């Protein structure tokens, strides 16, 4: 049932193309795109590009999430850190992170490091905000409860604040998964010789619209699968929390 709107959209797309309402120069038919994707998967040519992309996105994501959790918790608990980081964070927040790619290339070269750095920064932002809000909304009574059961002041962050903030952090990490994919593809548009973003950009450049769209759909499916797998893993690992959906 959930897939019905999607099936209708694909059906309408194919029907319009078959009826001649949609010239191939505007949009290739669904079958052409699907056939192109099938070819890429059979030949295996898409796999090394997938691996290169996921290496970059994974590294950036891991750095961003780890840094984001630490920074967010510290901001919530240490006044000086909050004062130092908050203005910087508010400044970075509205900047489209791909706009920083040229700058990072000047600093870190045109290779993987600049891409990983931009992805890390982009992933860091939603996680910092989630960890900060999560840690700040810990109920006083829970802190008092821990203190009256022998938890020293210095251990509260680890014993109470972090676990209390986990549901919010988990939501921030989910956003970071999507952000990682977006910034990854943008960074591979600008300079890369491998990767799914590179494929999209180069197929688009030579007018191979069916192949270009095939990679876009492949990316969408992978992103969807990642998000589902993440949510399923979360429900298992955090069964103590009542998730809203």
């Amino acid at each position, binding site marked *: 049932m959930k897939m019905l709107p999607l099936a209708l959209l694909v059906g309408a797309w194919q029907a319009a193309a078959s009826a001649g309402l949609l010239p191939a120069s505007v949009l290739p038919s669904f079958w052409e795109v699907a056939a192109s994707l099938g070819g890429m998967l059979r030949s295996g040519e898409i796999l090394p590009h997938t691996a290169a992309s996921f290496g970059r996105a994974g590294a950036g994501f891991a750095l961003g999430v780890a840094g984001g959790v630490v920074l967010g918790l510290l901001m919530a608990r240490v006044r000086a850190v909050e004062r130092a980081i908050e203005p910087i964070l508010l400044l970075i927040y509205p900047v489209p992170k791909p706009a920083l790619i040229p700058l990072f290339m000047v600093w870190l070269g045109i290779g993987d490091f600049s891409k990983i750095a931009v992805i890390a920064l982009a992933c860091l932002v939603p996680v910092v905000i989630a960890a900060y809000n999560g840690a700040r909304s810990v109920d006083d009574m829970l802190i*008092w409860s821990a203190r009256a*059961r022998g938890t020293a002041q210095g251990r509260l962050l680890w014993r109470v604040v972090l*676990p209390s903030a986990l549901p919010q952090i988990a939501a921030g990490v989910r956003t970071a998964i999507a952000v990682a994919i977006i910034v990854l593809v943008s960074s591979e548009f600008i300079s890369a010789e491998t990767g799914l973003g590179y494929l999209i950009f180069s197929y688009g450049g030579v007018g191979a619209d069916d192949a270009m769209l095939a990679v876009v759909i492949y990316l969408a499916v992978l992103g969807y699968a990642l998000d589902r797998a993440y949510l399923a893993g979360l429900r298992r690992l955090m069964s103590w929390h009542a998730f809203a959906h």
Partner: protein
Amino acid sequence: MAAAAYLEMRGVAMRFGDGAQAVSALDSIDLSIAEHEFVTIVGPSGCGKSTLLYLVGGFLRPTAGGVYLRGRGIDKPGPDRGIVFQRYSLFPWLTVRKNIGYGLEEKGVARVERDRIVGEYVRLVHLEGFEDRYPRELSGGMQQRVALAQTLACQPDILLMDEPFGALDAQTRRILQDEVRRIWRRDTKTVLFVTHDVEEAVALGTRIVVMSARPGRIKEVVTRGFDVADGEEFEANPAFAALKLHIWRSVKEEVKAARG
């Protein structure tokens, strides 16, 4: 001067905020509590009765005066004073077993010994079979049983209870009141129990403290001259009814005063 009381509040005042916005929550509180007493504190909402409990817990520091345990000033929380809140005593990410064993783990008690002690408290509050559940999977009454076991497992000298049964239905509340009384008799702990329920205050407290509307002052302290047995149908006891009526009238005056 007589020997220092076990738990003593001397000239305690508590204000929140400053300047024109300052709210005086407690004023000139003097109260002495002997060891093994079960003291209930009752008063209209907003009278500062929970604040009084938090001062004994060491979660808050009084604006004036001092709170002393065995003659020593209380300045921070500690496992010698256990607390059960109306909610939020339990850690949602820990199972019943780990919640009850929390204080023991913080104290460094080894796993095997910890499990043995946890087992004891699980039996004490009748939660056998629920050891591996998370708090959200339990009813409100069961959650409060876990909170009680979690607090008792730390072996506190004083049990602080902040309207612990306020969110429960009448039947569950009655059962848990009996359990708390039974545990108090068994362990002869000192209990300080805050409630807005007059019947609960009389059913549990060997002494009942009535507080005034804000700023909270001690209006009267009544010693209950009779015992209440576990499971007793105290509704049938004329002495109980008379005391309940007396306390109720006293509290009602304050509720009216608070509404002004």
